[in-house]
């Protein structure tokens, strides 16, 4: 029984997060591709290619995550986000030159 609880519990302590990337100023072209990095304590959990003005979704365990985004032309932003267990969140990251 204990083993079943240990196996099942972590999955139900996860949260779904949706992330939208927005350009904060006109120097950042909305058609440009960028790289999105999601990490916790310097551990890189996800790296994915997302266009500026694009979106992504993650299913992650609770924790404090750093979300960074950068385009080839240098439009970037970083934010810290705390994910709570069983609480979904919508995140918007605004990038600027």
């Amino acid at each position: 029984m204990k083993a079943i609880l240990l196996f099942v519990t972590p999955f139900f302590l996860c949260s779904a997060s949706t992330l939208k990337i927005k350009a904060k100023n006109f120097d950042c072209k909305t058609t440009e591709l960028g790289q999105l990095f999601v990490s916790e304590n310097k551990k890189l959990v996800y790296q994915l290619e997302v266009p500026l003005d694009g979106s992504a979704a993650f299913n992650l365990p609770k924790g404090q995550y750093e979300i960074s985004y950068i385009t080839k032309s240098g439009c970037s932003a970083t934010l810290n986000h705390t994910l709570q267990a069983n609480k979904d969140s919508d995140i918007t990251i605004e990038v600027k030159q």
Partner: protein
Amino acid sequence: MKFLFVTLFGMMASASMLAPRPGMRDMEGARCMALLPQCMGDTSATRPSDYCIQCQYLDRGIYPSVATPMPSYYPWWYGYGMYQYPSYYSYPGVWNNGGLSNHYYPGPGNMAAGKPNIYFHGLENGQEFDFKISYKEKANELSTSPIHTKNGWSIKKSKDGLVVDGTSYNYLYYDYKLDSNKLQSEAGFCGDENSVYKKMVSVLNTMKFKKAEVDDFENYWAFKIPKGEYCVFPQEHQELSEIAAWQSSMQPQFYKRVLFALIPKDQILAKKGANFTKVPESDWNPMRGIYRNVAQADSKFQIHEWGVAFLTK
């Protein structure tokens, strides 16, 4: 006599043209087993660009013409994370005891598929369709881009690419957790991280993935496979549809789908590689991953997908 011979010869020639081509089964979703243009979806609308399989490691950049596992160019983001993340190079994610971390990639399955990229071809500008990934038992979504809603993705083709929710994408991306017991564990190939990487690229080229699709694979996986000896068990649509099924409002005439399951060889030999208990007994034929749907013979629509999976620990 001469007339009879010509007639007989003509009848034989006609019969051979009308007969089914060897290796191609005329049934819905039939697997293509021949390198015929008709089997590869090689039409003017979807023809892959010219790409020299043998030259792929030789013709780029200023580096000497020697075979190397790495592309001789580097993606622009290559240096960005090197000082920020210790596992930036040579790891596909948070790594734990020879596999991806179960903590960060949650779900009941014992394997995580990283970066399946889906590409769509043969669409007219303005054409719209819905596409959804439907996860089966012990499989669940980990990450997607763009956001995959409960109805999947609503996609519109534009001159800039695939427009989802007002933004243009070159491809759709998803990560998911799965149960390795549903995967084939008989056919594949083994080698160190460099040789299996080269072989995977070769498989994609043999399957005639487009150059941009192979470039996407190289740009990421050239730098993200941990050092070690692996056996790779490629999976095709037949296995994957039992795990992460495609649901599309528009049916393709051709589709290509391959997921490379990378299992550390020492884990296989130590019987710690889940259902991968022995090294591959036979090579995997890349044609197994190509399907033709003859019921959609008039459709130019094609779907291409590649991905890489590791056990989770």
